[in-house]
């Protein structure tokens, strides 16, 4: 099967998520990549190392900004020759719009929120969660090319050390595609990542004992490079702001790592974080409901564990 993988890049580096998808494609068939932007040709070698046999590059000032619609034009041109069976994307603000725009342009099926891909009886099958991750669905396509959008962080990149052939791509870009312009780009907010975008979240609950308890939570979050969240109970009590609240009546998050500190884990909280890839819970009550769904549950005193954990994490990351 011939796959085309949409590679994303930012400030001269290829993004891990799309490299992970590339590796998956390489494991299932022949993988090629497409790189769109300005001064991106240099990244083709990296694409080769991570599984691409060939990289199609379109280096054009009109593609300088990460806007989706001109990319749909470029991909339409590339796919026009009909050489690919499937086009794979790792979900991001940009790629989701590209994938959906492309689906409309080509009248092609797009399956999204996928967490896995397989070839079964010669057919491409996608796997995705549904109903709050309580059920998994096998999805397929009824036409070529097959478009697939993967949940962020689904695949880890794997270096296979290959070399990629570079092929130049040329495409006309439509007027309406170029009508939206970027006025300001990628400005960092002064605060850290918002909890919805964070890959790592350290959340505090009643077990912290008081607002001072959040100092240790913040330290750990900083050490892990993550954001701080809070349960409804502590927000109600005024220990932490509402913007950090996770749960049924707060935000829903799905980070790669969720560390729940002093949180009992009642369902009102659970529904806001249950799709986290990895859940670690620290609570002194062995009967706390959170232990039913935490991947690693630690029954112990958070006041003793947190400082030690923070120190160890700092040491590991520095190494």
């Amino acid at each position, binding site marked *: 099967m011939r796959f085309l993988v949409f590679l994303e890049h930012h400030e001269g580096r290829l993004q891990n998520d799309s490299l992970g998808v590339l590796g998956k494609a390489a494991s299932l068939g022949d993988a090629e990549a497409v790189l769109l932007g300005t001064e991106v040709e240099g990244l083709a070698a990296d694409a080769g190392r991570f599984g691409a046999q060939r990289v199609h590059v379109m280096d054009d000032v009109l593609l300088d900004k990460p806007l989706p619609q001109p990319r749909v034009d470029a991909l339409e041109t590339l796919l026009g020759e009909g050489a690919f069976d499937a086009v794979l994307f790792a979900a991001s603000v940009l790629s989701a719009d590209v994938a959906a725009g492309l689906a409309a342009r080509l009248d092609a099926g797009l399956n999204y929120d996928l967490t896995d891909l397989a070839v079964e009886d010669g057919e491409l099958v996608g796997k995705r969660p549904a109903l709050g991750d309580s059920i998994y669905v096998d999805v397929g396509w009824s036409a070529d090319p097959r478009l697939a959008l993967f949940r962020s962080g689904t695949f880890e990149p794997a270096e296979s050390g290959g070399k990629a052939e570079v092929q130049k791509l040329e495409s006309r870009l439509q007027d309406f595609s170029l009508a939206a312009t970027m006025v300001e780009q990628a400005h960092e907010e002064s605060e850290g990542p918002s909890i919805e975008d964070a890959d790592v979240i350290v959340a505090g609950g009643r077990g912290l004992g008081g607002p001072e308890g959040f100092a240790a939570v913040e330290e750990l979050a900083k050490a892990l490079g993550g954001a701080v969240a809070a349960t*409804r*109970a502590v*927000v*109600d009590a005024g220990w932490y702001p*509402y913007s950090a*609240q996770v749960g*049924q*009546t*707060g935000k829903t998050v799905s980070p790669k790592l969720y560390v729940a500190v002093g949180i009992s884990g*009642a*369902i*009102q909280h659970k*529904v806001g974080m249950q799709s986290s890839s990895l859940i670690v819970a620290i609570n002194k009550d062995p*009967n706390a*409901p959170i232990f*039913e769904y935490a991947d690693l549950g630690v029954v112990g005193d958070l006041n003793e564990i947190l400082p030690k954990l923070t120190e160890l994490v700092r040491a590991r990351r520095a190494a």
Partner: protein
Amino acid sequence: MRPSDYPPPFDPNEFVVAPGEAEIEVGVLIVGAGPAGLACAIRLGQLLEGAPELADRLGDVPVAVLEKGRQPGSHLLSGAVVNPRSLRRLFDGRFRTGELPFYGRVEHESVYFLTPQRSLRIPTPPTMKNGGNYVASLAQLGRWLAERAEEGGATVLPETSGEALLVGDGRVRGVRTGDRGRGRDGQELGNFEPGSEVHARVTVLAEGTQGHLTGVALDRFGLQGENPQVWALGVKEVWKVGRPLDRVIHTLGWPLRAARKYREFGGSFVYPMGDDMLTVGMVVGLDYRDVELSVHGLLQELKTHPLLQELLLGGERVAWGAKTIPEGGFLSLPKRLHAPGLLICGDGAGLVNVPALKGIHYAVESGLLAAEAAFSALQRGETPGRRGALAGYDRALEESFVWKDLKLVRNMRPAFGRGLWLGGALAGAMTATRGAFPPGDSNTEPDADQELIRTDRAKSYPVADGKLTFDKLSSVFLSGNATRDDAPDHIRVQREVPQEIAELWTRMCPAAVYEVAENGVDVTPSNCVQCGAISAKGGRLTPPEGGAGPDYKVT
């Protein structure tokens, strides 16, 4: 120590305001889209169809129904086994009984006396016989009735609470609806929407148990009867089951204690809902005395009994809810159920037959009669605001079967204040003599006046296993409650109360609203499912913003 030693910071006068500019004008305003309110709306629709001139005079919106829940049914909960007579009368043959939203006729019934391990079948008390009655979900019935009401021309307004009574010149002129979009401290948030003044020629209060404006009106117009109202708390679940239940079951005895000192009056019910569902509930009078009593806990304990385990085997819980039931009956009825421009119906008025466990058909009947009284008072040459204009309602009620039924059983519930055995014997005597013996009328005492005692009751509540037994928080979640966390606190209670009182409330509340804190009690109002228990035991529930609370579907 008694809960009434710590009365809530609540003054009904806060909720009576002079009418200002009418923002909305309607003909008849009904507060509450339950069986009483909707029966009233439906009957009015029928009457107005035959009186186009009056309908015209009533303006663009002749009949409006306010409902504080997300939709009609969201806040409705009952057993329920319904006597269909009033519904039949309401629809006057338009629907065959098979077309009413019932689950099925009661074909068999059993009453059991439970001990911790056994169930002893006892003869069904005559007051409880359910032949000819139907099992229903009140929430579903409410949704269905709301559709009929709208078909009949009524305007149903969900997510709208009735917050204050508009009273001018001694008569009720309408209702001011509640604000939406206030913050925890009452401040106006970005999407603040103030309540509106809805003016009406006749206001009908059909708010159900612990009705907010009903309490305000009884106070304002001096309508309270001689005996205070008393309540029971019912907590129930709906289960999907593998084997159909073929009978209606009631139980007495375990897990309640029979001795007089506990004052634990109540029992449980298990009703079939079609072939694949059933509902199980626990009802306990709120005059209980033990600080450690938890009706939710008792329900979970009840399910561990062999009789229940067999019925629930392999099943799955699909709904949970809680609500109070007025239990004072005839003796606690208000002096009058009308005032200038005002009518009071249903559970809000206390029209419940406790020994028969019936109230829905009385609600429907009272709504129907209220509609007729309002219609009369709106005719040319009469003004509903005139003193006595609506007295026809009380007269009609007194001549109806509602009155006869309630009068007959008036002393039964109070008899159980003497304990299960003596109470049962007295009740039996009352039934046999059709109310003649024992003679006289008993009195009721406010639930909050009961002296508290403490036993170690709590240690027998099962630890939630998530399959047969459940904790309160997951139950609140199942009720569909997603009330805004930063909404203003709608519960009036003293905060600095002794530990005993705090613990009483903590265990009492099925929704885990209260928690024992260092100096008293902590309140999490967003958990509240508006059952009304707190109002009976030392606090006072007021309506939160419209749309808050549970979203019952099959309770």
